């Protein structure tokens, strides 16, 4: 955009060095944990004097961390399995109804992403406490599902907008019921978007920490909750190992999603 100012070299150099600094600021905290996770020492020394895999062993060898990992993976899977079908149905509904009805539905579905997490968390805590469900997997699950539904809708709504609805009507007029029309025509054609929505919903649950901190406990503590607690108490490089694994997994998932969408 600024090619109209080719002579202004000084401004350009200033702008780009500023840009490089801000980029470093953005990336540094994620990168700094990687070498640390391979440190052989108990201390958070940088660069590590000796390297080892002991913090990865500590993570995979710890029953507590493994239980949390299992809980998080189960929760993420269940969240995606519930949020994506619900999101798809809601998106079909919004796509077909259009107008004010669609706006109203979208408004309600987006509430959880606008309300601060801490409010959802304590509110959910109160509701679950009244039903004696605090600390159960169910409690965290509903919290994660409402957060994942808007995420799924963001992926699915534009995909549905590109979908040719006449195909469904053709199927209907040939005698297919709604379940068959949706399952046999919409789902296969939205395959890639549905996969993206599933991965995004999974990540949303995996990443969620505030609801987990308040609502999950004991056996059902999630990985983020445990990470939060250990960050508050004492920090050892086990967290660095988890962080590194985490970042690698997330980057892989995001790459899959973006590459799939481009192809």
């Amino acid at each position, binding site marked *: 955009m600024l090619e109209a100012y080719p002579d202004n070299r000084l401004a350009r150099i200033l702008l780009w060095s500023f840009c490089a600094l801000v980029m470093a600021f953005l990336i540094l905290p994620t990168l700094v944990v990687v070498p640390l996770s391979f440190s052989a020492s108990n201390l958070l020394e940088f660069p590590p004097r000796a390297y080892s895999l002991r913090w990865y062993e500590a993570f995979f060898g710890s029953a507590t961390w493994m239980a949390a990992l299992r809980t998080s993976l189960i929760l993420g899977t269940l969240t995606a399995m519930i949020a994506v079908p619900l*999101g798809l149905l809601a998106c079909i509904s919004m796509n077909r109804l259009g107008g004010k009805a669609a706006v109203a539905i979208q408004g309600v579905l987006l509430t959880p992403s606008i309300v601060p997490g801490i409010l959802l968390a304590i509110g959910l805590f109160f509701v679950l406490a009244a039903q004696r469900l605090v600390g159960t997997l169910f409690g965290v699950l509903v919290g994660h599902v409402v957060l994942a539904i808007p995420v799924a809708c963001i992926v699915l709504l534009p995909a549905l907008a590109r979908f040719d609805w006449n195909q469904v009507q053709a199927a209907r007029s040939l005698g297919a019921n709604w379940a068959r029309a949706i399952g046999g025509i919409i789902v296969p054609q939205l395959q890639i978007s549905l996969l993206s929505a599933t991965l995004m919903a999974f990540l949303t649950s995996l990443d969620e920490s505030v609801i987990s901190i308040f609502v999950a406990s004991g056996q059902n503590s999630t990985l983020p909750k445990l990470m939060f607690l250990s960050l508050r108490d004492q920090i050892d490089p086990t967290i660095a190992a988890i962080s590194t694994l985490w*970042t690698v997994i997330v980057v892989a998932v995001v790459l899959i999603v973006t590459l799939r969408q481009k192809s």
Partner: protein
Amino acid sequence: MTVIADPFLAADARRERRFFLSLSLPALFIVGLAAILPIVWIIRQSFLTTGGEYTVGNYEKVLSSGLTWSALVTTLQLSLGTLAICILLGTPLALALASARPRVANLLMAFVMLPLWTSILVRTYGWLVLLRRDGLINAALTGSGLTAEPLPLVYNFTGTLIGMVHYMLPLFLLPVYAAMRDIDANLVRASASMGATLGQTIRTVILPLSAGGIFSGSIIVFIYTIGFFITPAVLGGGKVNPLSTRIERTLSTFQDWGSASVLGILLLILMALVGVMFLAARRLIAGRKVGTGHA
């Protein structure tokens, strides 16, 4: 829309509409159950004593406490501080990205998105490692002789602010970058050919045309930061207490559900106020645009 005269077809259309409406019911139901009901419950809880009787005592207790007001001030300081730094860092960055070649811009955007997709806890941990007393940044500062003593960068307001800016900057950047990328390059060229300096062009052409994006980015920053919990809880080290951490402490340490609910409602009111302010500001900006457009 065609007018359907046939009563059977009209009934059909109505039935179909009802069917489509019903498709969103499961999603609406669960959002109602796990997001809207909890908010209503907070309101109810704020009027209850521990014994379950109705009272306004919670409000009296919370509103007369100095801690509440200092929490409110801290919340606003963190939000406004984050917003100011995001505008200062993000706007030039967006300008650089928008003026870069598409391939370079895409690569850089991927780097911007990386932190967005990393867990908040991973990032918070990264900042702890960097900002600690014996952390990387202090080691570099004292090692190079810039400062004699390590600076207190974390477990305080500074550290919390750094962590929050780091979280919000990519989210702020996205709308600003989108707005700047959409600016017609010919306008910039025209401005240059008419003799405007780079500074004048940025001030009078680029910034006004990307105001919408900066505005959207600011709303996003505000909505997110006003209820931020993880970053102040970890990087604040107990010394930085906005409404969110005060709510947590009231609930977990003091088991005082009523007061925690009142604090939650204060947070809701704050959000509503900010929302109304932004809407009013948008109307004002839109109004001015129409005005100058005809002048």
